[in-house]
């Protein structure tokens, strides 16, 4: 039975590695990366995965081997009467300490790129999270440059802005900075394909920046519990060319202008 129990513990590293090895084949893995930061983060993820994977196999393997070799049914050697080894303690303190310190320093730039070194540019849009939707506000893309008032109105926060819900569009290959706000409780702006996540906190305006490299449609999810409807706080991210993006904004602005008159008419019908 002793050998059997040792083998049970051997299954841990074998199946552990196997599960990680086959999962990408079933698409149970990192979603395709479409951003610049994402590449750095994925690189770090794989670096840590291989490092911890090696530590996992070595320690679990050692555990298995000691159980197999020193079980009381087969082992006839006398017990090694030792209280420890100063040299070994020093080795297995310094080695992991150095490795951990290396990881800590190695990743600092990636963190700074994602969260500290904000690009010096005006914000592309504002995202207001609320139970349970994403409210977006874009500046109008084509201000009349000869009219200073119009230039002012077209800026983010001005009168000539476009308001949308859950339909996030961004131009490809451009740095995007968005102002993340919350209208009620905590939310978290999560773009899995971009490896972007940032909590939205009521009372705070938090900048989030990223740069997409591939066009297409992707998911936007909420990653911080925000109430019963947390799971359905879903948005759609569309990455498209600059020209398509501008065209889409203008179209949305015209739709908005058209419906702004419609509600007024509808209101008079509704009231008894």
């Amino acid at each position, binding site marked *: 039975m002793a050998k059997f129990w040792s083998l049970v513990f051997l299954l841990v590293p074998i199946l552990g590695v196997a599960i990680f090895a086959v999962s990408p084949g079933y698409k149970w893995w990192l*979603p395709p990366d479409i951003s610049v930061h994402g590449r750095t*983060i994925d690189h770090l993820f794989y670096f840590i995965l291989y490092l*911890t994977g090696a530590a996992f196999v070595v320690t679990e393997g050692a555990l298995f081997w000691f159980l197999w070799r020193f079980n009381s049914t087969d082992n006839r050697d006398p017990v090694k009467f030792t209280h420890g080894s100063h040299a070994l303690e020093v080795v297995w303190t310094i080695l992991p300490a150095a490795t951990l310190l290396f990881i800590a320093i190695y990743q600092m730039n990636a963190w700074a790129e994602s969260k500290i070194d904000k690009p010096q540019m005006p914000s592309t849009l504002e995202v207001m999270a609320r139970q349970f939707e994403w409210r977006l506000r874009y500046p109008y893309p084509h201000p009349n440059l000869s009219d200073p008032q119009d230039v002012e109105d077209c800026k983010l926060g001005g009168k000539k802005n476009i308001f949308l819900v859950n339909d996030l569009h961004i131009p490809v290959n451009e740095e995007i900075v968005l102002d993340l706000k919350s209208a009620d409780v905590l939310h978290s702006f999560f773009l899995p394909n971009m490896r972007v996540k940032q909590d939205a906190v*009521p009372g705070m305006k938090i900048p989030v920046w990223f740069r997409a490299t591939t066009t297409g449609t992707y998911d936007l999810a909420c990653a911080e519990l925000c109430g019963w409807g947390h799971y359905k706080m879903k948005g759609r991210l569309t990455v498209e060319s600059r020209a398509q993006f501008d065209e889409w904004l203008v179209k949305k602005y015209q739709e908005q202008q058209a419906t702004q008159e419609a509600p007024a008419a509808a209101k008079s019908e509704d009231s008894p």
Partner: protein
Amino acid sequence: MTTAAPDSQGHSAGHGHKIGFIGKYIFSRDHKIIGIQFLFSTLLWFLVGGLLALGIRWQVAWPWAEMPVIGKMLFSGQGGQISPEFYTLLFTMHATVMIFFVIIPILAGAFGNFLIPLMIGAEDMAFPTLNMLSYWFMWPAFACIIASFFVAGTSGAAKAGWTSYPPLSLTDNPVTGPKFAEHWHLVVSGQTLWLCGLAFVGVSSMMGSINYMTTIIQMRAPGMTMFRLPMTIWAMFITAILQAFALPVLTAATFMQLLDRTVGTGFFIPPHWSANNSIPTAGGGQPLLWQHLFWFYSHPAVYIMILPAMGMVSDMISCFSRKPLFGYKPMVYSIAGIAGLGFIVWGHHMFVSGMNPFLGMTFMVSTMMIALPSAIKVFNWLGTVWGGNIRFTTAMLFALSFVSMFIIGGLSGIFMAATPVDIYITDTYFIVAHFHYVLFSGTAMGVFGAIYFWYPKMFGRMMNEFWGKIHFLLTFIFLNGTFFTMHILGVAGFPRRYADAYHFDLFRPLQPLNAFMTYCAIGMVATQIIFALNFILSMFFGPRAPRNPWHANGLEWQAPSPPGHGNFDFQPVVYRGPYEYGSPEVDSDFYPQTQPPPESQRSAELDPDPSKAVPVH
């Protein structure tokens, strides 16, 4: 020293003055009875928490599907479905119950109480009445949490997650009832009850920790120096210190949130804030403040939830390897290191919370460093097993699985400590996998081992080893089936706390994996029936246990099984540390701490400090 507890001390077994049934078994001041009371209560709550977990797993695997049998009973109004409100309640309560009613009290309350006086050679705790109160203060907490389930309507039970982040925890669903209920619902709502429950748990823990510290410092048997203490006691001691220093912060935060909810203070409410179209509040506070205060307690609490298990596992591994613990002092120092660093890593729960990103960097470095003492402990356990004479008892299997599983839980922590990777995997199932590996596969497995190990001492009878091993094997397989695959979900970005994630294109392919995990989870809970039967039946039908069934060295094994009132029927005197297995000084492969050394060495070694003695009456 004995004046602290005049009544319960100084009586050897069977000669205590008459105590009625209630005094002996219900409002008992005997540490062993209190420990067993904690054990029974926490095991019952373990069952509740496990069933809540099955509800969560059902919903995650098959959202909105009708639950067999239970669905009809509980949710007949909703076609047998779990509603999203009920789902948030499920995961909130699962975590609350498991953390505050199971893991913390089973380690400190049950094993801490039972083992500390026995392992240090004392007759009882320093403050027996305080000890009794620490158990009975759990009951208002139980009552609050149970009541919280039954608060009427969907604005009922707490459902802001076990972390209760404001402002969500300060809002309730729009009230549809009469006007007067608008404020009343804040007072009696589940969240308020939840906060009260937490405050009571805190009071209980604080009473316990003061008692443990005092007892360990003051009441050790003659010759029991600090560096002759078993690792279990070291772990309990440092855990008690952690509790005593971290808990006041949680208690303060709990009361601040209570005031926010009931009398309209604005500690955690930003200025001019409103939700659900309510009238804006004055506010003036900051939601992030709660996160800082909460994690300032709850991160050390993570170590409160693992260190005692580490201590108990060290004792079991050394005993069943028939070999001294490898690196006793490094083990002690690394526990102390974990505890010290544990106070300066709380910010790693808040990397993407909106906290200053520069602060994130410092927390990242301290978090990386806290992996170090954990690694040292793992290496020393491996060193203990190496060259031993390993006996695969049930307790040993659980202890070994603690080591094996803790390696996974420790290594997956490094992903989260790496801030850029954490941006992606935080609040996904990766973190769920991580803490279940530490808390279930680690602590709970360690606790199972400890139950099999100390059961003979608690109840005077042996548990069934055959069924114990079946219980181990099935639990081990099912827990890995349930929790290991969570890493994969997390890598795929699957968010936690989602009632239904499959309407996202990205997460739809993950459904079969979730279904598999749910089958494993059902198997895991079902396996515990074997344990429950073994636990209960052995109490009546198990073979009588001798004093020292495992041939262990600790002081508790020199007392009768079960020990009577006052624990020892002789005055224990300690001559050495608890891990002298296979010592060349004696013929047997164990060398109890109380066994006097051979004549030749006696004059050189024996130097018990009489001032540490507990006088024998």
